[in-house]
């Protein structure tokens, strides 16, 4: 039972992380390799805000905004020039972005490990009788659910969500209707970055902050998306759950095979449904 809850929290974090990537791909057709770097930036900025104010919640609220701003600027300065060009160029530009962001983080915060403490409210653990789960993990699980629900609602039920979805399907038509497509694109990229930053702050109390944390998670993101189907939020949820549970149960029984097992699941899914479980036909949600 504890394994299940832990798997759920792993899945939740994976989902929040992957959601931004899915959004950017589904709506912009860009695979943002720098997503991991935004995650790391969020964690470090969150650390800084928490260090200055002593308030984790403030960090949780503000760091994603900062990262979103950085993403907006990056998009305006660089990515927007490439939309008419081949996809691999955009892909590669984001690779360049990783290197630059990594170096900037290193310049500001240096090379050691940094630590963020969970807020007092969320410390400690909950006793479920036979096992204990840390309160913070439960919080992460809820945050993931909230994020999934929130994204779904915004994209499907609100006007702005509909505009964004329409713009991705047929930008020319939408701009004929008077919508500023360029701004929408920048916003989507910014929100994707902000989500990554949010994931970073959420993860910060659980992992030591270091310069390679972005590189470590990016593979996980891709796994989630490949399994779930590119451009599908529903798919990302499923992919995250699949991988989170595989990791948790794998650790329980066969820890040294967790990684091959995770990739094995990937291969299995691809053999059965090559475009991912919810891929291709559905671009969003």
């Amino acid at each position, binding site marked *: 039972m504890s394994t299940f809850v832990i798997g759920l929290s792993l899945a939740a974090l994976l989902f929040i992380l992957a959601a931004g990537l899915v959004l950017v791909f589904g709506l912009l057709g860009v695979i943002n390799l720098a997503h991991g770097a935004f995650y790391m930036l969020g964690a470090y900025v969150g650390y800084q805000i928490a260090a200055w104010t002593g308030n984790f919640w403030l960090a949780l609220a503000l760091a994603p905004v900062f990262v979103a701003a950085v993403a907006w600027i990056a998009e305006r300065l660089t990515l927007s020039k490439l939309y008419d060009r081949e996809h691999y160029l955009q892909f*590669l530009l984001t690779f360049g972005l990783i290197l630059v962001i990594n170096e900037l983080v290193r310049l500001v915060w240096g090379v050691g490990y940094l630590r963020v403490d969970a807020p007092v409210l969320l410390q400690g653990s909950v006793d479920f009788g036979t096992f204990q789960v840390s309160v913070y993990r439960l919080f992460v699980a809820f945050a993931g659910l909230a994020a999934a629900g929130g994204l779904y609602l915004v994209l499907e039920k609100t006007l702005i969500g509909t505009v964004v979805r329409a713009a991705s399907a047929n930008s020319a038509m939408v701009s004929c209707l008077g919508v500023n497509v360029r701004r929408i694109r920048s916003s989507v990229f910014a929100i994707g970055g902000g989500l990554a930053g949010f994931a970073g702050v959420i993860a910060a109390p659980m992992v030591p902050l270091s310069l390679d944390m972005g590189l470590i998670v990016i593979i996980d993101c*891709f796994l989630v998306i490949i399994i779930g189907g590119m451009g599908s939020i529903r798919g990302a949820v499923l992919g995250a759950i699949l991988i989170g549970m595989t990791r948790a149960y794998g650790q329980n029984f066969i820890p040294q095979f967790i990684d091959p097992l995770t990739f094995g699941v990937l291969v299995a899914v691809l053999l059965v449904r090559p475009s991912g479980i919810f891929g291709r036909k559905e671009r969003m949600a």
Partner: protein
Amino acid sequence: MSEKLSFNLTFIVAAVAFLALVPSLGAGERAIYFLSLTLIWGLFAAAFDLSFGVTGLLSFGHAALLGVGAYVFSILTADYGVPWGIGLVAGAATSGLLGLLYGLISMRVGGLFFALVSLAAAELIHILISSTLRDITGGHDGFPAVPRPMIGSSWDFYDNTTFYYLILAIVFVSVLLLAILRSSPFGRLCQGVRLNPVRMTHIGFRIARIRSLALLVSGVFSGISGGLLASLMMFISPETLSWTTSGDVLIMTLLGGAGTLIGPILGALVFETMRDVLSDLTVHWYGLLGLAFILCTIHLPEGLMSLRPGRLLGRLFASRRASKGELETILEGESKWRE
């Protein structure tokens, strides 16, 4: 786009002739080691371009093709006493088979999706080599004592300069073969598959087979460069299989000019030079490289080869927005969500 065989051949022969003279011109060991490394990466980049620039398959998992070749070669020659040349061939063959496997993947998924899946496949192999198969491969710590060849009693290949000549010879032959292949009918088929897969299918070509074959050949030459790398360093470790290696070769290819034979090799030279020079200047060199790379992607998407006057690179690499028009209709509809 036509690959002028005569141009490529002239360039190759001239370059090799020059490189063969370099040691006699008084180049120190440092320069020779640098050139040896650059030749190996150049071959790898050229092999990569066969898949990417010619056939249009963006693989983000080529590191595994390099690494598997390196490991198979190393294990056979160091642990089983297999002769150097045969070990190299075995490594190349294994990488070729892996390339074929990538080809099978490309039948299921295409475009950017293929890139991601190849990334995942390479990571899986990375993990297998660094932990699961630890007992054969030496795991995270790497595999030491990879031998140099023992050919003829008078040549000591443990001398870096002598080995440099051997590397030059092998890379020369390999690049020659690649040049011939690119200009051959098969090469044209691959380009057709890249430019207009639907049309090719209608004409009756089995594009899946062509892609797989391209990946196989790309794998073979990647494996050769892997074996050479292991033998040069006399050591191989799993770092070579990480996705950053796949990223590096992609950078090299784009920097130099994808879709050309010489571009990627040039790109390898520029990349290695930048690494060496920049890392001497500052600890933040990787960030500067990233910046250079961003600028290149925006302003110089066809790489350095596009700076060559009077050279028309294929329609797919057109950088002027004006030409996108009808191309978009053909390509976006098909290549973005390739079957």
